[in-house]
């Protein structure tokens, strides 16, 4: 018997990341910006996406969007979105996060979608989804005012790997001990480049700024606007 040590020194997820980069490139070529939305359960991901769809549906020449929504067991989120936007439900069967093959399969159900924005609503969880590249151009983290402004330091990976922080449920601010400034300052210690966008999906406050942020990012990241 002989023993051999093979040095590998490679990220375990290297192959998954390469596949995600290919998916991202295909979406770039179609002019679709992919947005991965992360948050804890109940922070308002579905409400934000419904408010986004409502805002754009009221505009002329508005960007087209679609949503792939991840859920452990039900299609309740998809039911809430279906009257506003094309939506495909991905049921993870209990898994705590989404992985690219599930997203690619759901994408097939959208047919030849070549709209401007594809949102992936991840499973409500701030831990596991942070480690999985779904081929997104933009990772957005949603933090609601009811969760407390001390969360960024508790979930460093999710905050470090995101580009935008949406503070949701702004309408509840008078009733909860939450400071948008404190949350933003804590988040900026982890990711100084994080854009901070406070919104209320319920009364529409900040939704216009959020949508304009998305349109600007799309122009920058894909190198093309909506004015074609």
């Amino acid at each position, binding site marked *: *018997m*002989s*023993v*051999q*040590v*093979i*040095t*590998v*020194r*490679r*990220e*375990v*997820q290297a*192959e*998954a990341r390469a596949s995600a980069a290919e998916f991202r490139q295909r979406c770039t070529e179609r002019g679709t910006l992919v947005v991965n939305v992360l948050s804890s359960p109940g922070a308002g991901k579905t409400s934000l996406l419904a408010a986004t769809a409502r805002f754009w549906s009221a505009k002329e020449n508005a960007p087209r969007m679609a949503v792939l929504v991840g859920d452990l067991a039900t299609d309740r989120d998809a039911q809430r979105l279906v009257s506003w936007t094309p939506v495909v439900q991905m049921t993870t069967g209990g*898994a*705590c*996060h989404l*992985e690219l093959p599930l997203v690619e399969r759901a994408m097939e159900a959208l047919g030849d979608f070549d709209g401007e924005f594809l949102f992936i609503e991840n499973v409500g969880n701030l*831990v*596991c989804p*942070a*480690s*999985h590249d779904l081929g997104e151009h933009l990772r957005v983290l949603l933090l609601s005012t009811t969760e407390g402004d001390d969360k960024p*330091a508790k979930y*460093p*990976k999710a905050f*470090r790997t995101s580009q935008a922080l949406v503070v949701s449920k702004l309408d509840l601010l008078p009733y909860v001990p939450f400071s948008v400034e404190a949350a933003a300052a804590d988040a*900026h*210690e*982890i*990711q*100084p480049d994080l854009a901070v966008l406070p919104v209320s999906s319920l009364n529409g406050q900040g939704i216009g700024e959020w949508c304009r942020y998305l349109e600007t990012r799309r122009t920058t990241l894909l190198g093309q606007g909506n004015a074609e």
Partner: protein
Amino acid sequence: MHEASLIKTLLEQVDRLAKEHAAVAVEEVRVRIGPLSGVEPMLISAAFERLAPAGAKLVIEEVALTARCRDCAESFELQRFRFRCPVCQSAAVDVVEGDGFVLESVTMRHAEPTGVAS
């Protein structure tokens, strides 16, 4: 808890390597885990024990989170996930190590060549 799915990915890679090298058994799998890897060493060990072939041992090397300042080039260990240079206070810092889950090496056993035919 996504450690089980990561261990499955890891074991696929180990299995492929073992086949490529015509190994008869895998003795040790060495991985590196950093504080910003998004994986928990205890959960990784538990998932490995449950899913790995019998006899294979997992060795986890825990590494610190280190970064380098883009402004003053200082290299330092990050404390409490505060991404700030301790020398010039710049927030423009890049992680050098500690944000990954890395397969370092695989130790495998081969059958000895049968030798000279008599």
